[in-house]
């Protein structure tokens, strides 16, 4: 009896061993003898359906024009965290993709681990800067080096609900970046837009605690999250404390919905249903706002602080991983993403914000950011010149959790803005030490 059982087990064991061996074997034979085939490039990207469809179209046109290179698009679902984890796993396992989509905040961690190829020499050799928004290339630089080619630029601007402005009898804000509204005018407008109570309550402005979203307020006063040499945090500097006190006051006064109220309805829905007058967001909100037929909205520059009206930019970029076996071919693909053909596809599908290809952006203005008026389209286009990027520290994740732990307390009015920012500053300095 015992023999029979052990026999059964050995049969099973044999079965799985054979399966293991054959599975390994077949793959080896298929990857051999690839001499005549085109160079395979793996491009990994996260994105929503419209973005990925556009990338796919760009890659198809690249493959058609370059028979010696074959690019495969791998579409990673999930959040940026899921995407980063997958990329890191592949790099650690020794099989990195050749190219990956990268955003400024995520880039520095990869660079600090030496996982991205320095593209500076290639950019200097092949890119004619006059055709592009040079500030985008400036913004992606880390210590003066370029680790990714920017494809799209997002800036934060004020979106406002025109119907609510009309009902409250308030004139629309100026669309001119050289003559924008002041912070005082902006706050006054937010207060005037606030009315009602309960489910009919209308809010003037959404005080987003996220320090990326609140940059326009402290950039305008000359503030920043780090000291100029980036060696220490500047979260408790006056411009930042002032900004967070202002945001806290807006929530306290009921001008802005509180985090608890947003649990019931996401902020984009609040805006689209006509219960939120203004919010500061990026060009990525255009697709849902445009799709909503009942919504009539406009865009305006961010309000001017004591020094300037300055907004933040986020750069969408393609990076080549340093483990890529075909860096030259990968560079060709990355470069293609900002070529005229690709830029046209990006504009036609309305993805990736403002294309970095200035020539095409200016030529195809009529296709971009509809249904905005030409003056409002310029709010987006000109905003690039009034924007700067935030410094994203490699330990972004830790800094973020420290920030939110305290920022939540500020928004719930449990601690003062001064106290909260002081705590954040101390924790940040401990983390980056």
């Amino acid at each position: 009896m015992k023999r029979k059982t052990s026999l059964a087990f050995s049969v099973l064991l044999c079965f799985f061993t054979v399966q293991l061996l054959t599975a390994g074997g077949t793959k080896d034979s298929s990857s051999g003898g690839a001499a005549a085939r085109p160079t395979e490039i793996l491009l990994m990207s996260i994105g929503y359906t419209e973005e990925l469809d556009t990338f796919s179209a760009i890659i198809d046109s690249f493959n058609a024009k370059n028979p010696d290179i074959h690019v495969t698009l791998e579409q990673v679902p999930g959040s940026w965290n899921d995407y980063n984890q997958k990329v890191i796993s592949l790099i650690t396992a020794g099989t990195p993709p050749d190219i990956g989509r990268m955003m400024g905040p995520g880039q520095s961690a990869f660079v600090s681990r030496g996982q991205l190829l320095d593209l500076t020499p290639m950019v200097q050799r092949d890119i004619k800067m006059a055709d592009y928004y040079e500030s985008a290339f400036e913004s992606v630089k880390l210590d003066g080096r370029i680790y990714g080619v920017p494809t799209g630029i997002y800036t934060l601007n004020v979106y406002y609900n025109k119907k609510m402005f009309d009902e409250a009898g308030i004139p629309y804000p100026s669309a001119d970046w050289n003559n924008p509204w002041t912070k005082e005018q902006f706050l006054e407008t937010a207060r005037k837009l606030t009315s009602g109570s309960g489910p009919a309550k209308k809010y003037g402005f959404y005080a987003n605690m996220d320090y990326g979203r609140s940059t326009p307020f402290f950039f305008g006063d000359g503030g920043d999250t780090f000291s100029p040499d980036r060696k220490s945090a500047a979260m408790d500097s006056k411009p930042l404390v002032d900004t967070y006190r202002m945001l806290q006051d807006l929530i306290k006064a009921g001008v802005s919905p509180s985090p608890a109220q947003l649990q019931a309805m996401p902020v984009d829905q609040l805006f689209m249903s006509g219960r939120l007058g203004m919010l500061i967001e990026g060009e990525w909100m255009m697709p849902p706002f445009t799709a909503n037929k009942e919504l009539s909205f406009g865009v305006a520059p961010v309000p001017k602080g004591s020094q300037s009206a300055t907004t933040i930019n986020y750069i969408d970029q393609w990076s080549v991983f340093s483990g890529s076996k075909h860096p030259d071919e990968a560079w060709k693909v990355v470069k293609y993403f900002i070529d005229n053909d690709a830029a046209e596809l990006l504009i036609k599908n309305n993805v990736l914000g403002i294309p970095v290809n200035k020539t095409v952006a200016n030529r195809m203005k009529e296709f971009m950011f509809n249904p905005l008026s030409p003056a409002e389209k310029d709010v987006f286009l000109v905003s690039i010149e009034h924007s700067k990027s935030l410094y994203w520290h490699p330990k972004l994740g830790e800094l973020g959790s420290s920030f939110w732990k305290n920022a939540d307390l500020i928004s719930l009015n449990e601690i003062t803005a001064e106290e909260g920012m002081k705590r954040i500053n101390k924790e940040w300095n401990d983390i980056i030490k």
Partner: protein
Amino acid sequence: MTPRQNAIIRQGRAAFGYTLLYIVLIAAGITMIFPFIWMISTSLKQGSSVFVYPPQLLPIPPAWRNYADIFVKQPMLIALLNSLKIAIINTAGTLFTASMAAYGFAKIHFRFKNQLFMILLATMMIPGQVTLIPIYVWFRKFGWVDTHYPLIVPAILCNAYGVFMLRQFFMTIPDSYSESAKIDGASQLVIFFRIMLPLCIPAMATLGLFSFMGNWNSFMGPLIYLNSKLKYTIPLMIRFFQNSYYSDWGLLMAASCVSIMPIIILYIFSQRYFIQGVVMSGLKG
């Protein structure tokens, strides 16, 4: 009071008690099912009408298009088939191997049995993130990346939780069953398949359900191992309807409804075992 009157009062009290009980149960039932109903309702709404006030339970007109759109915009059908394939193979495989291993640990005496069992349990204590990359490297050497093998083989071969759960159940079956069968000349395999396995159908059903659900909802494994979209499973595909800044709730909920359908169907047909199993494993585990 006559006995008759007494009976009437008692009946009346009982009726009152039942009415109260039913009211409470119905109220609790509605509370439980409301999120599901809301999900279905949202799946039939156009993007803009999801958050209107007052909330609409019955969207008019219902946006049936959402259900067509999710299949057109993404290869949902293929993802559905992939998920079904993996979940069914894994469930059947897990039941097969885990029940045999559990039987061995519970009823057969051999050397180092307890030590081996401890090692098996220890595998449950190691967090998945720690082993993720070594296992990935291993499977890459097999040439299994971008195939369904890494999702199927480990799930079938080492479901420690399943072995543990079934072992606990086998141990409650008295040895006299197998001993009398042994006297009648039955081999271990006959004892296992003809006597022991039929006795633990409720436990197997529970494990089967857990295993099916676990495999159906699994996200990290498929995310790391699969590269081509046509091999993706449902949890991966649903994420394409979400993005960092906003979501099309109608589409997202339609996709979610489709994705939970198999689980709900499974639950309806195996509700009895499911509840039995939870009670049982709760007591024994």
